């Protein structure tokens, strides 16, 4: 009897300890995030000024203007390439592909593989193929081509999920009133799936903005005095700008690396907010 009470107490202590440990790890995770964010933002935000954002680049200003323009250019053009391909691929997988089809298995394996390839390997491939073999040189164009492949799995999987979440009754209704399959896809399925597809696109934007390893050998580390939309010029994006500044090791460049980091974190914030907003909308629809 005594022993069993002891045993019970032991079990209770053990349970309490485990509970404490589990709570601790949950809070620790949030704590790490807050620490990283504050660390960069508190030192970075005071350093952001108009010259840094919109001025001419020189060793004094270390302006991010041309890198910001290059980043936006890269986002727009690589989305123009990958969104149609990704969404069409998702339509094929969700609407047309038959179950157990061999081709589908291969396609899914390829998408999974693309999603798992580290960005440095994309960078090497881009350097070999786009920069050297196709002769695009180190340029924004090479960067765009490389990045478009890299974000493809993100766009495909979120689009496919969004398309699959469209209720079958919508399709049946449309087919029932005599619409063709294609018309149903474009008039009913895609519009309903738009929020989910947008969430995927925004996620992809986040990846493009933060990417360094895949771009450093493709679009290069060059910085222009003034922004240029020349696709054949080698230009650094914002993330590479930060890497280069951090690597210079001077106090001033270090400050500006903090400032660039703060901008990147603000972008990540916006991206995250927008994604959950759109994703929440599909959630309600279901």
């Amino acid at each position, binding site marked *: 009897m005594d022993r069993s009470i002891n045993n019970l107490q032991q079990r209770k202590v053990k*349970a309490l300890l485990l509970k404490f440990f589990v709570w601790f790890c949950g809070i620790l995770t949030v704590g*790490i995030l807050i620490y990283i964010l504050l660390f960069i933002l508190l030192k970075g935000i005071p350093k952001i000024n108009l010259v840094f954002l919109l001025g001419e680049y020189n060793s004094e200003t270390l302006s991010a203007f041309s890198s910001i323009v290059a980043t936006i250019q890269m986002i727009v053009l690589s989305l123009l390439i990958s969104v149609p391909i990704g969404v069409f691929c998702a339509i094929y997988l969700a609407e047309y592909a038959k179950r157990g089809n061999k081709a589908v298995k291969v396609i899914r394996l390829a998408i999974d593989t693309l999603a*798992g390839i580290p960005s440095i390997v994309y960078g090497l491939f881009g350097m070999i*193929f786009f920069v050297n073999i196709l002769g695009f040189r180190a340029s924004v164009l090479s960067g765009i081509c490389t990045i478009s492949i890299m974000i493809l799995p993100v766009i*495909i999987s979120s689009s496919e999920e969004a398309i699959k979440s469209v209720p079958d009754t919508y399709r049946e209704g449309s087919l029932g009133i005599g619409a063709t399959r294609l018309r149903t896809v474009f008039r009913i399925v895609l519009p309903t799936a738009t929020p989910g597809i947008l969430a995927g696109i925004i996620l992809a934007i986040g990846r493009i903005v933060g990417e360094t*390893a895949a771009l450093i050998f493709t679009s290069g580390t060059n910085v222009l005095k003034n922004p240029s939309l020349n696709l054949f010029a080698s230009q650094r994006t914002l993330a590479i700008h930060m890497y280069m500044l951090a690597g210079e090791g001077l106090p001033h460049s270090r400050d500006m690396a903090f400032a660039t980091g703060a901008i990147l974190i603000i972008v990540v914030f916006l991206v995250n907010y927008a994604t959950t907003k759109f994703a929440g909308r599909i959630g309600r629809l279901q």
Partner: protein
Amino acid sequence: MQTRHSNINEIIMQAIFFLSALISVIAVLAICLFLFMRGIPAISEIGFMDFIFNEKWAPTNTPASYGILSMIVGSVYVTAGAIVIGVPIGLMCAIFLAEFCPDNVYKVVKPAVNLLAGIPSIIYGFFGMEAIVPLVRENFRGNGYSILSSAIILGIMILPTIISISESSIRAVPENYAEGSYGLGATKEETVFKVIVPAAKSGVLTSIILGIGRAVGETMAVVMVAGNSVMPLDQIGILKPIRTLTTNIVTEMSYASGLHESALISTGVVLFVFIIMLNTSLSLIKSKAQRN
């Protein structure tokens, strides 16, 4: 007439959808082809054994030496360190989210985990360089650029992967497992740790493998905190600098040419083959879990 017209449209569009789907396959094949095309000849020129099992990397010496064993070992060390740090915290956090977390706390922790996943590696690297490296330098020996700093940063970086996948696999464990356990008089904690988490083990394993993949492939965050010196095998230490496969590529590519450049691409090939092996083991686990 109109139906025939739309029939043609249907066929054309269906072909376009299918071709778009094939692009991913073509991309994977192209990546394999061009990477191997540039990497394999260099490996055979250096000699496979001399490339993989030689610890001496001195591409600018005459005669040059291109052994990457030290970097392979380096990648293994930082990845193992990341797993040791990231998996316990991540798994506990996943258990917290799935089983113990009140709704209003969930609304804070879950978005935090998502945000952690969205932070670019350059930010992690810079944070590591400015916060973790000085911390290691002040509390231990050495200059702070070390295996330990890399492992800490990578451990944080794999947290979101571990947490989200483990959480959803814990949530997927059928309700009646827990009911059975409560019926036998087990406490909530005993039920979670002895019944639910073991039942979710294939999902947890998947999350760990994905975490390994992320840690092995990570470049920019590691290059900023690892110090990047090529260490002879007998001098590798947790507080000493290290060079990994990925950082070997990124530190030297900008000035490499000829066989040196090809050897760096071959380093990428080794990394790529390793990632493919991880992916294969992942799909094996998946198909095994589906069969059960």
